[in-house]
């Protein structure tokens, strides 16, 4: 709790805005509540189309996207558009794809990041602490 409080204090200097996109309504709500509790401002989108619209209308510091939304590769497409429009925006892809298809994606090497376009990939179920760590790493880089 101590370190968490300290980190929140550091964060208080600047409120980051997150674009959060997931078509699982419950997962979206839960992530939003947790991110807000951790001091982020959250723009939540229930799908790829909504996320594209919200991204065009808002300044965001970081994006956390689900990979499979209306289309199986919606997250990839969205990520590509974000990187194209504002290359400096860090993007984290969250996916259950490994769990569901056995395919493994990763964004650990430059080559993979180049292909995937995302800065990090996390497998569902995501532990919130892990997501938060990744977000801070990318935001403070």
């Amino acid at each position, binding site marked *: 709790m101590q370190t968490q409080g300290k980190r929140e204090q550091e964060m208080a200097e600047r409120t980051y805005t997150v674009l959060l996109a997931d078509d699982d*309504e419950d*997962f979206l709500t839960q992530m939003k509540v947790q991110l807000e509790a951790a001091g982020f401002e959250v723009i939540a989108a*229930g799908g790829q189309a909504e996320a594209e619209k919200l991204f065009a209308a808002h300044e965001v510091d970081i994006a956390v996207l689900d990979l499979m939304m209306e289309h199986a590769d919606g997250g990839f497409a969205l990520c590509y558009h974000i990187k194209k429009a504002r290359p400096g925006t860090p993007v984290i892809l969250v996916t259950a794809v490994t769990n569901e298809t056995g395919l493994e994606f990763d964004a650990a090497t430059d080559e993979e990041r180049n292909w995937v376009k995302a800065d990090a990939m996390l497998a569902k179920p995501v532990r919130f602490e892990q997501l938060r760590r990744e977000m801070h790493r990318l935001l403070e880089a």
Partner: protein
Amino acid sequence: MATELRVLVVDDEPGMRMGVRRALQDHEVDLPDMGETVRFAVDQAESGEDGLAAIDAAPPDLLLLDHKLPGISGMDVLDRVTERKLDVQTIMITAYASLETAISATKRGAFDFLAKPFTPTELKAAVRKAARHIMLQRQARRLAEEKRQVRFQFISVLAHELKSPIAAVEGYLRLIQDRTLGENLQDYAQMIDRSLLRMDGMRKLIFDLLDLTRIESGQLKRDLKPVDVRDILQDSIDGQALTAEQRGIAIEMHAEGPTRMTGDRGELAILFNNLVSNAVKYNRDGGRVTIAVTGDEQTLRVAVTDTGIGMTPEEVDRLFKDFVRIKNEKTKNILGSGLGLSTVKKLALLYGGDVTVDSEPDKGSTFTAILQRHTEAEPTDEPERDTTLAADGRPGAAE
């Protein structure tokens, strides 16, 4: 489809080997009922030892095996093939009138026997029978594999569908446990509502699954007797009355002509419940559900029309598959198992009928169940019986 079967002739008489080769090399066996044409590639061996070496190198599909060989006997070769459970059908060539040898060969795993001397026509008849058996076996194996795949896929999706509400509820409980929104219980109302809704969805999935299993297993005896579909539909309407009233949806039923048919009340209730509850669920507030019962002497049609969200033609195409739920902005707050319509379809087929859909986005949909008024029980498990027969490998099953 054309298939080439590999034949190995093991015989110490060169004339016999040549004769078999000549008879089979340009020969074709037509199996029109299976959509197959079979051709043959013939190899030969002049002793049991050579034969076994050839079988070891690459097992043939069909083995023509002379009983009386100079070294290892034909029976020993047969035993080796049987012992190693090779996928080889053997026709034993025996001396004329040695019926006992023939019977003993069949007992030891041979598919058939041919008595020397035989004519090319007799050879071809025996080979035809064996080829048919091999092709049936392959088909049965393919079907069993496909079934296994479908089953596996079904279970993976099912596991996922059962896991996802647990993850959702667990997530909410942890947020509540951590007091993420503070100490005021009122602030958690939405989380609690969603949790209850997801659990309700899970319960519905389990019930739908039980319905589906009951229909697919065909183990429960169907209780076919005269029923009036109006009564069953009225029960379905009553079941939806509360939900419909809360959302200001009116449900009405019209019947033209006789409404009686022979059916299992439980099955028809599942069918109609699914159609009526969908018509309410995917309707707009203040909408209407119209149920029309029509038909002729043979068939009965139940058309359920709603004034709801409707579907695009692409969405309609995918609709009747297991676990397919149309996912879009309009359906995201409607819970369903994705099993309802696939169950409806299976039931309609059981009544020699079908389910058709007519739909327009934002206008509504009409689902029509077309049912035969009188159906004989269980037309559906015929192909299965075929499969089991052919797969158990008895020679008699082939012809």
